[in-house]
């Protein structure tokens, strides 16, 4: 018994020493940068060029504390429950709508935004945030098809309906996401990706079920790895994932079907937990700067909504129709709305039932 108590005591003493050291260290660094010269940035993992964070600190004096999340829902839960002090976060379109409705966002003062004129007007004023009251676009992208030219002819796979072709039996990888899976079926039936009719949803599910013989697997982020390893010849996934896969395998190509697809956004917002607003505005203006935005886009590989930044990018990126599709294709793209709890569940149940379809 005595041994246990001694060891417990030792552990407690060690914890106290560590705590004291940490406190000492943080107070020491605090003398260089005062504690309110900080910016708490809440972003997706590896979603900014780290060199830019350093540059930002050098230019403005704000130290960036960068925390990451791996899904919109995880970020939403953390901000909703409070206890955090994130000054800026980067949710996707439908989540911005949901957070806005639940009053989790602070409106942006457009007078303090010096760089808003740099953005392409096609990517401003979206349905989820009219007049960009609450958000500035960070990156955008599409849902599309990756194919491997060793196994598939480009002309055989240009439209969503081509996925149903019997020649692709057991060859397609589908992203494991209810919205995206059903969006494909809805688009082929000329319906909106935000359709709220039970009959249309049932029809979309039935259509998707007929795709099952062609589906090899329903997976998530692993798609980029599998495609780079030639595991499958076709995959349906997001442009961001595609750009990573393409950079690892020169036989891969990405297309956005011209009849329509999903257009997604990751926008920067100021959650109501923000404490360092001056720092937040400084960062928003910093990242809107064409040079910085271009550097970031080159590092991440996603499409930038910053028009002036796009002009600074190398020609090979700027003219890449895979990731910067032409105006006509862009005009057919649709943004996801937040469907609300009931319909989110209906979409997910429909997709789950589809996944349970016997093969």
């Amino acid at each position, binding site marked *: *018994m005595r041994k246990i108590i001694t060891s417990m005591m030792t552990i407690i003493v060690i914890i106290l020493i560590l705590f004291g050291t940490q406190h000492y260290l943080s107070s020491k660094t605090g003398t260089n940068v005062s504690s309110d010269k900080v910016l708490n940035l809440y972003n997706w993992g590896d979603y900014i060029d780290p060199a830019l964070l350093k540059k930002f600190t050098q230019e403005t004096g704000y130290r960036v504390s960068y925390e990451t999340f791996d*899904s919109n*829902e*995880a970020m939403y*839960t953390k901000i909703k429950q409070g206890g955090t002090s994130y000054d800026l976060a980067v949710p996707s379109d439908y989540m911005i709508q949901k957070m806005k409705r639940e009053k989790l966002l602070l409106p942006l003062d457009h007078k303090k935004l010096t760089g808003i004129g740099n953005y392409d007007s096609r990517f401003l004023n979206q349905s989820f945030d009219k007049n960009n009251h609450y958000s500035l676009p960070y990156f955008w992208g599409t849902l599309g098809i990756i194919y491997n030219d060793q196994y598939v002819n480009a002309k055989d796979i240009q439209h969503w309906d081509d996925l149903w072709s019997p020649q692709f039996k*057991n060859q397609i*990888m589908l992203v*494991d996401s*209810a919205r995206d899976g059903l969006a494909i079926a809805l688009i082929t039936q000329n319906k909106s990706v935000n359709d709220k009719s039970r009959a249309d949803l049932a029809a979309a599910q039935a259509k998707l079920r007929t795709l099952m013989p062609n589906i*090899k*697997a*329903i*997976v*998530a982020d*692993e798609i980029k*790895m*599998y495609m780079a*390893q*030639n*595991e499958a010849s076709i995959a349906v996934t997001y442009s961001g994932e595609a750009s990573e896969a393409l950079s690892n395998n020169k036989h891969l190509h990405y297309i956005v079907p011209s009849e329509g697809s999903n257009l997604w956004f990751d926008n920067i917002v100021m959650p109501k937990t923000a404490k360092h607003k001056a720092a937040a505005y400084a960062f928003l203006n910093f990242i809107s700067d064409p040079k910085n935005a271009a550097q970031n886009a080159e590092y991440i590989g996603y499409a930038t909504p910053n028009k002036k930044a796009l002009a600074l990018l190398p020609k090979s990126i700027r003219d890449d129709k895979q990731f910067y599709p032409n105006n006509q294709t862009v005009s057919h793209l649709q943004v996801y709305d937040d469907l609300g*709890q009931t319909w*989110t*569940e209906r979409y*997910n*149940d429909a997709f*789950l*039932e589809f*996944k*349970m379809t016997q*093969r």
Partner: protein
Amino acid sequence: MPKSKQQRQLFYLMPYGLWLILFVVAPLVLLLFQSLTTQDGHFTLHNYALYFSSGTYLLMTFNSVWYAFLITIITLLISYPTAYLLNQLKQKQFWLLLVILPTWINLLLKTYAFIGLLSKTGTVNNFMSLFGIVPQQLLFSNWSFLLVASYIEIPFMILPIFNSLAEINPRLEQASRDLGANRWQTLRRVIMPLSMPGIKAGIQAVFIPSLSLFMITRLIGGNRVITLGTAIEEHFLVTQNWHLGSTIGVILIVAMVITMIFTRDRKNSRKRG
């Protein structure tokens, strides 16, 4: 310091009691509470009604139990002979260590390693092509799922069986042989009944976690195998209907309790042995 022995005992029990209340009882109560309420906080049995009237969830439950059953049988068939042979070896602790070693590696890493082995351009297919066999589709099948899940669970089956076999007095085996039983009869009538507690512990250690496996179903099974773990993940992460997710969680707990009851080590089993 408390004086009487009883007080002292109580004092030492406190951390354990607190631990149990905070990390075992409280989460269970919360789970049950969540499963019995709706989004706006009303008490209801609606979630359970939804669950039991939905063909999808019932089929998924059946899938979970069926695959957990298969995994348990496969691991048992492999582990019992292995544990038995391990016990005959001289350096048995060393060999046992080798069997246990893979459990020190993170589950996800092991799964990714299997992707490298089983993929179209993976090690297995490369090896087969030496004999002129064209690359086969190994990933994303029920078989690959069973293979990986069984591989991961095997140490948890071997360990309890090994321990219960090691406890058996070797003289009992000799006595059985002296009295005219052959090897098979000795194994069947003496060793197996005496190692029953180990088998039951192994079944518990494998069957229960297998019920809610979910990462492997997607990574290796490509969502061809869908178990309740998938549904729980979806309700907590995507639809954010924690109430229905909790309901499925409660049902899994009930399934586990049933397993525990069936594989309970009855007191009289020793006597019969």
